[in-house]
Structures are given as structure tokens and as C-alpha cells.
């Protein structure tokens, strides 16, 4: 087993966590946008 294969191990684990992080960021942005819309709608309802 050559040490060259260490790169594959690092790549697999890195891409796994990058994938999870990108998905969490996407959900956080969605949640932020919808909450902002909710705030605006509540303010309009109060007026």
C-alpha cells in the first residue's frame, strides 16, 4: 500500500464534510429568507 493513497482518504473525508457544510449553509439561508419574509408580513398585518 503506497502512501499516495492517503490523498484519496483525505479527499473522501473532506468532500463528505464539505457536502454537509454546503447543505447546512443552504438550509440556513433558506430559513433566513423565509423568516425575513415572515417578519415583513407580520409588520404589514399590524399596520
Amino acid at each position, binding site marked *: 500500500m503506497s502512501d499516495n493513497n492517503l490523498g*484519496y*482518504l483525505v479527499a473522501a473525508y473532506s468532500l463528505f464534510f464539505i*457536502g454537509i457544510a454546503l447543505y*447546512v449553509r443552504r*438550509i440556513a439561508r*433558506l430559513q433566513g429568507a423565509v423568516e425575513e419574509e415572515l417578519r415583513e408580513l407580520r409588520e404589514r398585518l399590524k399596520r
Partner: protein
Amino acid sequence: MRADAILGPVAAVAMLVALYMAFLVAPTEASMGLVQRIFYIHVSSAFTTYFCFFATAGASIAYLWKGSEGADRLANASAEVGVLFCTLVMITGPIWARPIWGAYWTWDPRLTMTLILWGIYVGYLMLRAFGGEDEAVARYAAVLGIAGVLAIPVIRVSVRLLQGMHPSVLQQRDGSGSGLDPTMTMVMWVATLAVALLAAWLVALRMRVERTVTEAAALRRALDLQQGSPA
């Protein structure tokens, strides 16, 4: 306390334990060496994909039976998270295959069926995203969510019946045990639990977004009524 607030820290601790065990407790496999440690995220992601798609199918049955909006939200959220983990399986698998098989991809029965499973649930998500808010779309998606899960037993059986390159994790082709070192098997299940908890947290986060969207839609309708222009 919200489910995502509890699941987040629990999943983070479980992932740290799983990583510690995958790198420092599990023995190095004799023929493949260090690269075999990809096994712990690859297999746990595959099992988690199955859990998510079974959750989609179960929630879709509940939606068709009871018409529950919560079940529909769970089906949609678990399908999305299932597709994420299925994608991660199809990224980590080829990276592991390259140094071992000499190729990133082969049209092995298990690989091909996994690609088909991924395609079915991507289709499900596209139907949900572009089909509109019509209730009929939710029902069509529920049927697809239930039908898609049937590919999972086909994947399991394909490894044993067809002569593919992909190894069987839980059983050999002759039905005997996996042949895995007991410590490796234990670490694999710990990693599976950790990744499943991570997926449960993501599903809870996704469902929270959907609940907020529903709340915003209700407020929009109330506002339309207040202004005398019903939607």
C-alpha cells in the same frame, strides 16, 4: 425545546466519536491500507440513505392515508437529505474504488442500482420543486416516494445474485457472515449511528424551514383577506 436544537449537539458529539474510532480505534486493513478507512463514511452514508428513503416512503404512506401536512413535510425533508447522502455515497465510493479497482466507476449491479435510486429521488425532488403547490402534485410525489424505496431491496439482492465487483458488507454471497474484523464492524455501526443522527438533525432543520414557509403562506392569505383581495 426544538428537535434540531437537541439533535445538533448530539450529532456533533457522535460524529467526533465516530471519527476518533475510524482513525484511532479501527485496525488498518492488511491489503488496502489506510484508504480502507473511507469504508466508515461510505457505508454509514449508504445505510443513512436507506433510512432516509424508508422515512420518505413511510411518511408518504401516512400522507396518503391521513392527509397529514406534517407527514408530507417529513417525506419531502427526508427525501432531500437522502439524496444528499446518496450523492455522498457516490462521491466517496468512486474515490475509494480508484486505488483499489483501478477505476472510479464500473457498471457494477450495485453501483448502477444506486445511481437509479439516486435518479428516482432526484425526480421526486424536481416534482416537488417545479410541480407547484397543487395537492395532486403532493400525492404523485408520495406515490413516487413509496415506489422508489422498492429499489433498495433490489440493491441488496443484486450484490448476492449478480456477479458484481462491489463487496457485500453484512453477508457474503453464500449467505455467511461478512468476514469483517469485529472491531471494524463495531466502528462501522458507531459511524452509522453518528451519520444517521447527523441526517436526523438535517431533516429536523429542513422541516423547520417548511413549517416557516407554511406559516408565511398563512399570513399572506390573512393579509390578502384583510386587504379585501383573497388569493
